[in-house]
């Protein structure tokens, strides 16, 4: 009974937040002279109206799930990883580099390329991790700085060693590719690729790692209370580093999804991909839980894909979606309000 009730509240908060977010978006559309019903109909249509767009939504979700997991994983261990963006960029580059440079059978090539992405991202996470653990350097600044370093370094590598045409590298060969004719066929030629299944798997892995393993227990303990953890004989420093490495590894895999799945190459980036920064929002909306991340990545992916249709067929500026996302996060974060209202309702009922 209490379990049901708490589950209900847990669900009510995000659902109500999403509702309020869309509601506020509708008001903005009204005020700016658009019809919110056509606007949202177009948005909805842009996600579910055609299997192609649905496929694209799932494709868009894929890196968001990884970056969301990356943020959440660090968050669970008390660290704020703003550097997912950079870790994702180096992961993208490294996976494509392995994809392009080697000539191997599929069963080795693809895993190796994925591994390269994870390792590169992990390395990018290792630096702020070790600095935090050894020298108490604030991870937020280091990760912010590492984002810029990643952007420039990866552009440098592509420009000088891997440039094929225009701004990008060679295409990776089929042996390193995640793209799936089956999934494409299923979704009418969307770019949905096997990475989507990997992302689901990653959700399970995160859940299992954090909640079912010894290491996960330690990581959470360190996150909640480093003092008590060191009293209990855990190595706080190692765990901080490990957490950043794993987090970076997930982020790097997110980059590999783009490199080996969506695009099939790496490119000179003239600005950040924002996939990493969006990951912060995905993780927060998903309350740093696996299932939450999956669902909020779907919401974000859908909003992003649907926004184009909203603009195309209802003439609503795509920025509206960003406003809606912001408001949803706001309401989720302010769940105190919703909780308070729910409590009020409940105690009124019990009072009678």
């Amino acid at each position: 009974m209490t379990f049901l009730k708490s589950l209900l509240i847990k669900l009510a908060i995000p659902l109500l937040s999403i509702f309020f977010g869309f509601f506020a978006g509708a008001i903005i559309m009204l005020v700016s002279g658009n019809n919110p019903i056509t606007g949202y109909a177009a948005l909805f249509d842009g996600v579910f109206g055609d299997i192609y767009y649905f496929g694209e939504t799932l494709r868009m979700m894929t890196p968001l799930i990884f970056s969301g997991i990356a943020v959440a994983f660090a968050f669970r261990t008390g660290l704020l990883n703003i550097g997912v963006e950079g870790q994702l960029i180096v992961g993208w580059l490294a996976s494509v580099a392995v994809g392009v440079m080697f000539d191997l059978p599929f069963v080795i090539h693809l895993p190796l390329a994925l591994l390269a992405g994870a390792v590169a991202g992990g390395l990018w996470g290792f630096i702020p991790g070790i600095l935090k653990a050894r020298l108490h350097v604030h991870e937020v600044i280091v990760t912010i700085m590492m984002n810029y370093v990643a952007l420039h370094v990866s552009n440098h590598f592509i420009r000088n060693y891997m440039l094929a045409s225009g701004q990008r590298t060679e295409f990776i060969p089929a042996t390193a590719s995640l793209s799936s004719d089956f999934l494409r066929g299923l979704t009418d030629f969307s770019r949905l690729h096997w990475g989507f299944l990997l992302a689901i798997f990653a959700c399970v892995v995160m859940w299992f790692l954090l909640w079912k393993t010894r290491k996960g227990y330690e990581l959470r303990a360190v996150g909640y209370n480093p003092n008590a953890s060191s009293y209990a004989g855990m190595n706080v420093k190692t765990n901080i580093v490990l957490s950043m490495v794993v987090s970076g590894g997930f982020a790097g895999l997110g980059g590999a999804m783009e490199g080996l799945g969506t695009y099939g190459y790496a490119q000179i980036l003239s600005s950040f991909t924002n996939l990493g920064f969006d990951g912060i929002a995905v993780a927060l909306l998903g309350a740093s839980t696996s299932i939450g991340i999956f669902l909020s990545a779907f919401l974000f992916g859908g909003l992003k894909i649907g926004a184009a249709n909203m603009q195309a067929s209802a003439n609503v500026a795509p920025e509206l979606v960003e406003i809606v996302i912001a408001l949803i996060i706001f309401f989720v974060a302010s769940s105190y309000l919703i909780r308070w209202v729910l409590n009020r309702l409940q105690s009124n009922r019990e009072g009678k």
Partner: protein
Amino acid sequence: MDYVIEMINIRKEFPGIVANDEVTLQVKKGEIHALLGENGAGKSTLMNVLFGLYQPEKGEIKVRGKTVQITDPNVANDLGIGMVHQHFMLIDKFTVTENIILGNEPKTKYGNIDIRKAEKEVARISELYGLRVDPKAKVEDISVGMQQRVEILKTLYRGAEILIFDEPTAVLTPQEIKELMEIMKKLLQEGKSIILITHKLKEILSVCDRCTVIRRGRGIGTVNVSETNQNELASMMVGREISFVVEKEDAKPEDVVLKIEDLVVNDLRNVRAIDGLNLEVKAGEVLGIAGVDGNGQTELVEAIVGLQKASSGTITISGNETTNLSPRKVTESGIGHIPQDRHKHGLVLDFSVGENILLQTYYQHPYTKNGVLYYPKMYEKAKRLIEEYDVRTPNERTLARALSGGNQQKAIIAREVDRSPNLLIAAQPTRGLDVGAIEFIHRKIIEERDKGRAILLISFELDEVRNLSDRIAVIYEGKIVAVVDPKTTTEQELGILMAGGKLEKEGEPI
């Protein structure tokens, strides 16, 4: 009647709990009025209501006969009510003066703080009431006793006439407690009235005029202290009889379990905190460490359990040297450790009670297999210990945060004792707990001693050290300056040793 304070039928609710239920408290002018009750009885809540931090749901407050609405601490200040909080309300990084003047700062004509004038004023008041403080010192650098004097000065600076002390003695050394009692008497002479919350019945009996008892949020009654005794107060409070003397036989010490030789430890600021310390604890005895806070107790414990590096010297446990091993290695060589700050070091408050109980053993078989946790086994174990150690919790999956201090402490003790360590280090094991919980913990410690464990007890509570220990080692400036027999040493004598003095008489080492 000339009551300065009357709180009549106060009711205060928190979500899901009634903290004060029709409690009445009447304080006469010029008296020290004790407020007594178990942990969580609602004492602090009642005082926070009086101080304007909480708003009561029901009830009336009269100050000097006039009904008032105390909507926030400013109103309380204006009414002349000051409060010394259970958990100090001091800002570590500020100086003593800054802490005192906060919210009431003297200004120069340029609008900045007139810090000179403030310091002078602080010096003046502290002189007046005999409260020695250094106005320019940072709070993080001064002793707990001085911090408390700062708290008192804060109220006096604001011209408080009615002072509330919430468990002021829990953190003080005997000397400091004595000084505090003197200060209180002085305050009375100056015409102030005092409300004192304490769990120590002896203190109530020695300084208070009247005592109001609350139990589970309800007022039980008010008695004249001169007409009551320890047992009556205790049974009013708990609702049953309590024994105060720890029943124990003489110790039968056996082999040396912990042996420390010439230990030197530098603290975090690289100051020598332990300075050539020697100590032995034998199986089957309780060795109590008596000392004023800040003489190296923390560093001693942390060095033994491996959390601080020893610069030189050796630590041996059951014949194996453990100097500078990792905490886990040390723990595995047979140490149990009840840390002094249970929230900071003892528990992961956001873990469940069960996860906390396994905090030292989660990685061992059968709780972990191949790196994977086996939760059913963990919870099975936790359930057993919760029962055995009478940890009052809805179930083993409840967050540790939701437990009261006493029950949190019991969970820690369950965890540490159950591993059957050769050496059990108990640092401040009963700090801030009520008599019921204290009784339980004391019994448990003696039980373990009688099973042949070596117990190292560190406590600022001299009574506790004297009651439980078979030998008392006095620590002063990082050295053991004397080891004495509790049966033949008086409190005064211990006090002298703790202050760095020497005993004229037979204080031979034993």
